[in-house]
């Protein structure tokens, strides 16, 4: 039983560190704990300790903002969840995982994860938050997505929401440039949720250099040019007609 006691004490320490926000110390303790977990027999108590430790590990990677480490910790944790284990933190972690898949645009995996949820889990705020976000993104209700940053169910979601904002901004920019002719800079700022005009200008310069800034307005679609002779795909038509001729020749 000594291994369990040892691990439990490490876990309490880890919890304290995680609450205090000490990422480095937490990581060091977690790796000690992981070494201890190698000798764990498969008893319910041991599994519970291991699950809790790995859950804390996931939360640590989120506060650190390391997406790759997050994916790794999730992969370690998943077998414990698949075995039917579950702690109070489970829906929180599952929600974070869904957010991660959404940010990473891995929608097929996102939907596979949804299949695994029970109704009760799916109605939990931690989990329903990313589900709603995904639906809004698919339909195109971007303003709700942008406002979602205001009411995250847990501070740990903020990291993913911020990440998502960038993706959403790109999508909005894609939509705006085909559906508007011109737009006031002020309106564009509110639509894309930029705080200052400068931020918007920087974004335009960085990612959208084909947008034309004319005083107070942004111009997306340059006036259509007159048709030219080069618009007629003459070479293509000729080759097509020639190929018809050769094929017909072959038939007759």
């Amino acid at each position: 039983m000594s291994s369990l006691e040892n691990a439990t004490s490490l876990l309490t320490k880890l919890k304290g560190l995680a609450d205090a926000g000490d990422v480095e110390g937490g990581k060091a303790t977690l790796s000690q704990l992981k070494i201890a977990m190698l000798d764990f027999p498969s008893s319910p108590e041991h599994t519970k300790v291991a699950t809790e430790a790995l859950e804390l590990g996931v939360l640590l990677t989120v506060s650190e903002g390391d997406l790759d480490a997050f994916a790794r910790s999730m992969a370690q944790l998943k077998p414990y969840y698949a075995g039917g284990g579950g702690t109070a933190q489970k829906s929180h972690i599952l929600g974070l995982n869904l957010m991660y898949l959404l940010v990473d645009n891995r929608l097929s995996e996102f939907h596979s994860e949804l299949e695994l949820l029970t109704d009760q889990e799916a109605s939990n705020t931690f989990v329903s938050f990313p589900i709603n976000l995904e639906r809004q993104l698919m339909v195109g209700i971007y303003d709700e997505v942008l406002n979602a940053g205001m009411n995250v169910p847990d501070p740990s979601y903020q990291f993913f929401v911020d990440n998502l904002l960038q993706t959403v901004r790109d999508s909005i920019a894609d939509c705006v440039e085909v559906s508007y002719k011109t737009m006031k800079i002020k309106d564009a700022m509110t639509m894309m949720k930029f705080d200052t005009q400068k931020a918007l200008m920087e974004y335009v310069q960085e990612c959208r250099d084909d947008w034309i800034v004319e005083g107070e307005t942004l111009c997306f679609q340059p006036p259509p040019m007159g048709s030219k002779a080069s618009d007629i795909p003459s070479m293509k038509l000729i080759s097509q007609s020639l190929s018809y001729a050769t094929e017909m020749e072959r038939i007759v």
Partner: protein
Amino acid sequence: MAKKEDPPKKDSEKKEEKDKGKKEEENAAPPLPPLEAAGRRLERLLGGGLSDKDRTLHTYSNPGKVVRRWLGTASGASGGATLEDISAAATKLLDPAGRCSAGRVLLKAETAAETAMDVEGAETPKMKEAGYLSSSADREVEGWLISLMVRLLWKDNKFSEAFALAQKGIDILMGYLNASALKITSMSGVSAASLYPLLARMFRFRSLVAESLNDPAVAASLRQDMARGQNMACLRRDVDCQATLINLMLQDLLNNAQVEQAQKLLANSTFPDSASNNQLCRYLYYSGRIQSLRLEYTSAFSNLSQCLRKAPTNTGLGFRIAAQRLLIIVQLLMGEIPDRHVFLSKGMKRELSPYLAITQAVRQGDLGVFHQVVAEQVTRLQQDGTHTLISRLAQQVVKAGLRKLHVSYSRLSLQDVADRLGLPSATSAEFVVAKAVRDGVLDATIHHEEAYVQSHDLVDVYATKEPAEAFHRRIAYCLTTHNDAVRAMRYPPDAYKKQLEASRGNRRKRNDDKTDEEKAQELEDELDEFD
């Protein structure tokens, strides 16, 4: 999934059944119980049966095939069998001193409690006259009888007994296979292939029973065992077990909603080409389901429609309904509206009615109506396992609604769009319209200041390159079809020479004729002109 359990019968099999009936009449001996008769028939088919050697029907080189066909015909005999019938057949057919004694004891043990069994010794003289099966078919009949008994126990809801028996049956058959693998050089090594269909059948029954048992520990142990069995089946080139086990594993994973795992299994295994049509249908259904859950709608669509095409038309209604409703949803998710007659086909009308309502809501393009319909049917959809797929449809509803508005109005305020589609606000509507424009659903411009959408005038299609391209696509298709047809033609050797000579001769003749005619014509023309 009991509805998928019974393999559909084919016409040829029915005919064979009739043949069997005739043969039995010819025998004119006291009628044998159907199970025993079927067992003896298999013995003859497999080339055994020393007592009536002259009546050997056929000798096949592929015993697996023989057993597969025989299983189809024997299903008539096994239909009404009871536990007593089975154990009686076992006592008559299986030699207690032979290698199948284990199965005999097993089969008898199941009924021992219910019927007072004769003393072993008293039976023996009776056996002598009937004769046990020879070594050519005893293993097969043993496996068959065990599988029948498993099915009966399962029907009587004795799941744990059925499971134990199925497990023992698999062990017995596996034991035979291993034994014959050891003496691969002798005759028995070759004939082990006849056990494959029976083993596959046993695996299927075991999974069926395990599903009814609904015990996670059993399911976990089976998963490992099935993977091992699949491995062995591949090594033995056992097509029946390979196909059956892949399907069973996919089914197990899908029942547990392990879509990622199922996808990995799908990607890393090859389904045998020569598997039976029924297994292929199931495989197509499972792969369609996995792909639809993973948003790969195009491939899901092709798999499911192929599955429906291959599925038997006279039986397996439950299976066809399951495939059909999945196909409807996939079509809706792809932005297509399924044909109306799909919902009205025979036997499916009632089952598909919720999906008809959903389809109508999608067509209408009103989010409010759609959510209402889904809420009404929610328990039904969860039962069908389609609820998560249906909830993805909201996007298509909005698209359909927008398209409708787009064709009816040339200019519409954003607030109206929001009201019509059931969106939360005009701002949301603005984003939704913008996204639709980008996705190519609409051709319109948004005016932000005045908050309205202006549809673009319809462009004259004939002023664009579109018709030329459509024409090219069709011509290209016709030309490839022609070329493929030419390539696929077969020519008898040297036949062209005759034709060549004939045509050469003809041409010369025709040329001569023509020249004469032409000369005459020319002369006439000239004369006319001069006149």
